[in-house]
């Protein structure tokens, strides 16, 4: 029952966090879904500027859409550079975006790796069922890019809406493998990661944009993430550092 429970729980958390944010008082941070564990942990810790910060997690595209609709936000951390560009073009910020974390892609397999998958090319095998993220979402674009750059042809049985969907299919045993972020695979139980050398060529970056202008409440948070304490928290969860 564990994979089901964790999937359900993730779904409930995501659904709950999808709503808007508060204005005034506490700083508000919009962040891509993969950052949910590390940022939630930080917001509960004493001695960090993230303490009691209001966090909202969703896909980078829907967060950007909310910001365009004037949701009051101090910092936006996106997994998709295009969304950052979109906001800057629309005039929501003229500060420089800053990379705060990096991630890598891994192959997620069922605990114990029963099929013994070891290489990216193994995903082309006819007997292997693969789940990928859909084109259009950052993970999907990264996955597709990596596969075409290495000339590996994979026909997945499903294109999931996000990393959680891919992981769920793997954890439930409905597919044999999926391509997800290393951090997601690490935090999921019942799932093992297979590290692949081809992932080194893929640069997954999380870019933070300060939306508070010069006043700097947002900059304080971003600075913290770039500090030793922030970097150590990120590394602890499996993120690579900029």
């Amino acid at each position, binding site marked *: 029952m564990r994979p089901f429970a964790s999937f359900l729980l993730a779904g409930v958390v995501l659904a709950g966090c999808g709503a808007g944010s508060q204005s005034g008082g506490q700083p508000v941070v919009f962040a891509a879904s993969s950052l949910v564990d590390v940022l939630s942990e930080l917001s509960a810790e004493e001695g960090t500027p993230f303490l009691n910060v209001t966090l909202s997690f969703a896909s980078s595209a829907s967060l950007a859409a909310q910001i365009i609709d004037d949701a009051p936000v101090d910092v936006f951390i996106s997994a998709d550079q295009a969304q950052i560009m979109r906001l800057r073009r629309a005039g929501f910020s003229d500060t420089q975006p800053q990379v705060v974390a990096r991630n890598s892609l891994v192959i997620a397999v069922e605990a114990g790796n029963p099929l013994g998958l070891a290489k990216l090319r193994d995903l082309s095998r006819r007997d292997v069922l693969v789940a990928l993220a859909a084109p*259009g979402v950052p993970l999907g674009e990264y996955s597709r890019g990596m596969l075409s750059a290495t000339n590996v042809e994979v026909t997945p049985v499903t*294109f999931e809406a996000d990393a959680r*969907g891919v992981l769920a299919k793997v954890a439930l045993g409905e597919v044999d493998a999926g391509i997800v972020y290393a951090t997601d695979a690490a935090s999921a139980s019942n799932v093992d990661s297979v590290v692949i050398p081809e992932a080194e060529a893929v640069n997954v970056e999380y870019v933070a944009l300060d939306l508070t202008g010069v006043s700097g409440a947002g900059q304080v948070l971003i600075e913290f993430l770039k500090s030793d304490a922030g970097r150590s928290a990120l590394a602890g969860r499996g993120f690579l550092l900029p």
Partner: protein
Amino acid sequence: MSRQQRHDARVPIALAVLGWLAVAFFAVPILALVIRVPWSSLSGVITDDATTEALTLSVFTSVITTVLAIVLGVPLAWLLARSNIPGRRFIRALCTLSMVLPPVVAGVALLASLGRRGVVGEILDDWFGVRLPFTMPAVVIAQLFVAMPFLVLTVESGFARSAGTVEEAARTLGASPWYVFTRVTLPATQPAIVAGAVLTWARALGEFGATITFAGNFPGTTRTLPITTYLALESDIDDALLISMVMVVISVVILVALRGRWVGAIGGVR
């Protein structure tokens, strides 16, 4: 409206106010959608292969779902309304539970039972080589699981209402129970069946959570129109709006075509 009509149909003020408020509640979001849609790009989206493929799949699967819902749901409604089986209340709750469950949870339940490692799914795979997830039948199954309760409840209420001396009279005239069912009960219950079928079809057409969880998403096989819309939100909102309008237009066409014939039947009025 003539003076006579105005005075003959006097509606209590409170009802009128609340009623029109409800109309606004429904109308405003739809109108907002219509206003925001970039109509100039409509032809591009409609003729796009991905969209037509998803549209065809959605219509095809939702129609099959509706037919299956009638084939299975009418007998179930009969059992609930007319038989003496003990524990009917429990059975009814069980069969309509999927209406209350969040669709994704329903999808997880389907995976747990019919997935590759599912209770029944494993047997299907090992013995028959049949795998349901990621196939078109899986789309139908997901839709059926969440949408059939609508038909069951509507038709059950129809059967309960039609029970009475007419059916007894038919039997005294020499009609077998099956003849009574097909020639007397079903025609009398037809409005409820139609109403239930329309609700089922509408729910099936819009089904998303259970479908993407159980059947997955693959173009041509399992990518339905709602899934396409949801994914389009991630990359291009305008596309999402346009695809949504396609669904709205289809639904409006069907509902208007049926006009008052089914709306009244839900509440029992002919």
